[in-house]
């Protein structure tokens, strides 16, 4: 009897969750006035747009995009290097074994979480207001976002390090800095290389959209060409972007394989 009741209860529970889910969907559709017919008819419009307005890309003015591509790459390099320096400092202050004081660890973790959970484009927009249009807000928002990201992943990589070697140095009477230099850093290097390369990839992807809020890079070309309705130019820029991202992914993968 009891099992039958249990089964019944389980079934009821499941039906209730289905009903709740359905209600959520219906409410959502109503709230944003989502019309399926319009949506379905939107898909062919979108595809039509993609394949007639958008494609084929206009290859004739390729050289004119060299500058934004170089800009984007330079953003990536500068932001990655600076963010890795800041991230290293914060990462070591945040990781359990290397933090000078647990309170510092807690405070920094809160701060980094604030940095990370505010979307990147919001930072970029605010920085555009502060520094004006151009590459400066772009770089700074990449650094801001990157420092938060790297601090977190570096700290995690340090915390994952096996504690055996540190214990040995402790037993020999080595001091705090000596332990960091001789036991923590050597074990942390593979993580450092891997995450720093990943940050470079991320910053290339991110700097492609920075231009949308006026913060320079190849994204500004996307916005510019779209605002002028020159969609086949937009598709050229996007193709360049795709190639860039794929090439960089391939390169960082190779470096990673060789170094670790």
């Amino acid at each position: 009897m009891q099992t039958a009741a249990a089964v019944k209860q389980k079934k009821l529970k499941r039906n209730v969750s289905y009903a709740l889910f359905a209600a959520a969907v219906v409410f959502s559709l109503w709230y944003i006035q989502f019309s399926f017919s319009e949506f379905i008819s939107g898909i062919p419009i979108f595809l039509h747009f993609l394949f007639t307005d958008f494609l084929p890309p206009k290859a004739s003015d390729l050289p004119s995009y060299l500058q934004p591509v170089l800009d984007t790459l330079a953003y990536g390099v500068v932001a990655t290097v600076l963010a890795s320096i800041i991230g290293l400092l914060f990462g070591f202050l945040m990781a359990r074994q290397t933090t000078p004081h647990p309170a510092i660890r807690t405070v920094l973790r809160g701060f980094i979480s604030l940095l990370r959970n505010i979307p990147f484009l919001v930072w970029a927009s605010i920085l555009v207001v502060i520094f004006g249009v151009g590459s400066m807000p772009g770089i700074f928002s990449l650094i801001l976002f990157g420092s938060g990201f790297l601090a977190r992943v570096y700290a995690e990589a340090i915390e994952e390090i096996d504690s055996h070697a540190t214990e040995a140095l402790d037993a020999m009477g080595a001091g705090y800095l000596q332990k960091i230099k001789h036991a923590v850093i050597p074990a942390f290097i593979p993580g450092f290389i891997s995450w720093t390369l990943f940050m470079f990839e991320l910053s290339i992807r991110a700097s492609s959209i920075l231009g949308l809020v006026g913060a320079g890079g190849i994204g500004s070309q996307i916005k510019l060409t779209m605002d002028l309705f020159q969609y086949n130019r937009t598709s050229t820029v996007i193709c360049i972007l795709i190639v860039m991202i794929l090439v960089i992914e391939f390169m960082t993968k190779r470096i990673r394989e060789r170094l670790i």
Partner: protein
Amino acid sequence: MKPMLQINSLKKQYGSSTVALNGIDLEVHPNEFIAVIGPSGAGKSTLLRCINRLIDPTEGSISFQGQEIVGAGKKQLRQIRSQIGMIFQHYNLVDRLSVLENVLHGRLGQMSAFNGVFSRYSEADKLAAIALLEKLGLEEQIYKRADELSGGQKQRVGICRALAQKPSLILADEPIASLDPNSSRIVMDSLHANCIEQGIACLVNLHQVDVAKRYATRIVGIKSGKVVFDGKPEELTDRMTQHIYEGKEHQMFQQGVPVEQAV
């Protein structure tokens, strides 16, 4: 003769109920090679780690060459630790550094923070470290990365690192528990020979009674956090051994194979 290390009623309690050490008294004199035997969980490892305070004891006193270790300040503790070498079951080497760098780590405790951080080892220290490695038959491995070595080789590097400290006491925590019989013999031979030759007192945790009897000048048996035997190897009777290992008799031999067969 005055003991170099004197432990009085040492206690260690984890949490509110788990008692690892329950009043240990022990004296170590220069030139002694002491094997601490007992089943796993008896508290051998905790005892060794209390001596250099990798674990803080709950109660009791430890005095090393006239200095009190329990309650020593940070600086004094580092100074004491630099005179005590330690060898670990899992070798505890830094994998991505060279063998030579790992051995030189033994010098860190006696260097200034600045020199230590920037690896400014003296040439004399480097030569001494190389000589040590050659002595232990690792001349081919000096510039290899630590993670390229076999277990037995790693443990010999561990011994070199401890010897590089020029310590007056070496603590070895289950140095051969992860090794095959042949490597075990080489490791124990090296450790024993060097300690005797340089007059270093040595405290070795072992769970294999046969190995203990072969090398030790004195055997200490520990059971449930208490010293139940302390005497010469020949005084350790089979009955005593059985008492120490009660219920865990299978741990008495090396991987179940008596060492004589393996040699």
